[in-house]
């Protein structure tokens, strides 16, 4: 009886929120103010903030773009957790016996272990070269996560080659988010704009260079904090995707 009452309450709440969401959706559809192109804003506001347009597009606002992608990933992890994480979130799924029904073949056994090394290395190369070549933190983190997928699919969780426990995933995600947050705050402190690109060349420190000179953004050929943001995002994306894989592998039909 109590279950029935709580279910009715849940349905009522869902209906109310659906109504509110529908109202705002319809309201925004009829009162949509079209901005004349994103490039208009870029051209108008960009050079007032950053040294030039190249810096604006390639470096400063790219960090915002990545921040949005990271939020999408967080939403995906939450959604997967809500839909498939029943019974998984309470404990460490890596301790569960999720050995594949079919044992790995000889080819899988021989090639998986070396491939994990190579895939992780390629992912890190993509991450570290992301500011001067095609790639970046998101792509690099995704590639590293595929090493986790490969070993989980072939060996299961208990005998996994690339084994990251749930606690370590949390730590990696926390470190990645902190790197991003702190670097963004440095930009805020220096220029008044969150994630503003600043100089990050630390090796002249100790030879008469002050902190203010260190954080001064030299020119548009300098990557500034972007490589470090890439590392933070790679850790975050890696842990996000691995969490999704963990939740999906540990999902049980009850």
């Amino acid at each position, binding site marked *: 009886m109590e279950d029935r009452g709580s279910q009715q309450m849940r349905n009522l709440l869902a209906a109310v929120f659906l109504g509110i969401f529908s109202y705002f959706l319809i309201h925004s559809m009829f009162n949509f103010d079209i901005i004349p192109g994103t490039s208009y804003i870029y051209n108008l506001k960009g050079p007032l903030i950053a040294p030039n347009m190249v810096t604006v597009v390639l470096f400063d606002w790219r960090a915002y773009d990545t921040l949005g992608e990271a939020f999408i990933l967080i939403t995906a992890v939450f959604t997967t957790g809500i839909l498939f994480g029943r019974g998984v979130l309470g404990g460490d799924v890596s301790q569960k016996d999720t050995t594949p029904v079919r044992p790995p073949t000889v080819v899988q056994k021989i090639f998986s272990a070396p491939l994990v090394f190579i895939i992780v*290395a390629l992912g*890190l*190369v993509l991450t*570290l*070269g992301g500011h*001067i*070549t095609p790639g970046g933190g998101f792509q690099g983190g995704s590639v590293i996560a595929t090493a986790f997928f490969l070993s989980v699919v072939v060996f299961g969780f208990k005998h*996994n080659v*690339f084994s*990251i426990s749930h606690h370590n995933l949390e730590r990696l995600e926390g470190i990645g988010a902190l790197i991003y947050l702190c670097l963004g705050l440095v930009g805020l402190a220096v220029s008044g704009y969150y994630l503003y690109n600043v100089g990050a060349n630390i090796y002249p420190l100790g030879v008469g260079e002050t902190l203010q000179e260190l954080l001064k953004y030299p020119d548009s050929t300098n990557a500034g904090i972007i490589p470090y943001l890439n590392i933070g995002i790679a850790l975050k994306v890696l842990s996000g995707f691995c969490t999704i894989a963990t939740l999906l592998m540990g999902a049980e039909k009850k």
Partner: protein
Amino acid sequence: MSTLIGVLVIALVLGVVLGTFIRGDYFNAKTYATVVGLSIFIDVMMGSFPFYTWEIGMELPVSGIFFSIIVGLLIGKAIGGK
């Protein structure tokens, strides 16, 4: 990361960190030989990608970052790999 040395050090550190998550159950001498052989092959084929240069302006004919990461992964596995 504005110098090659800085990138190599960061690559080594990240390699060590991720290498600690790689377990040793399926690794033997042949596996390590395969990893090293494949790595050298890929390293040479990558060339100077991703185009970091020494301070003297010379580009390395091999990918120093890739090599550094592989060394870091091997060290990390030796340290923390079960």
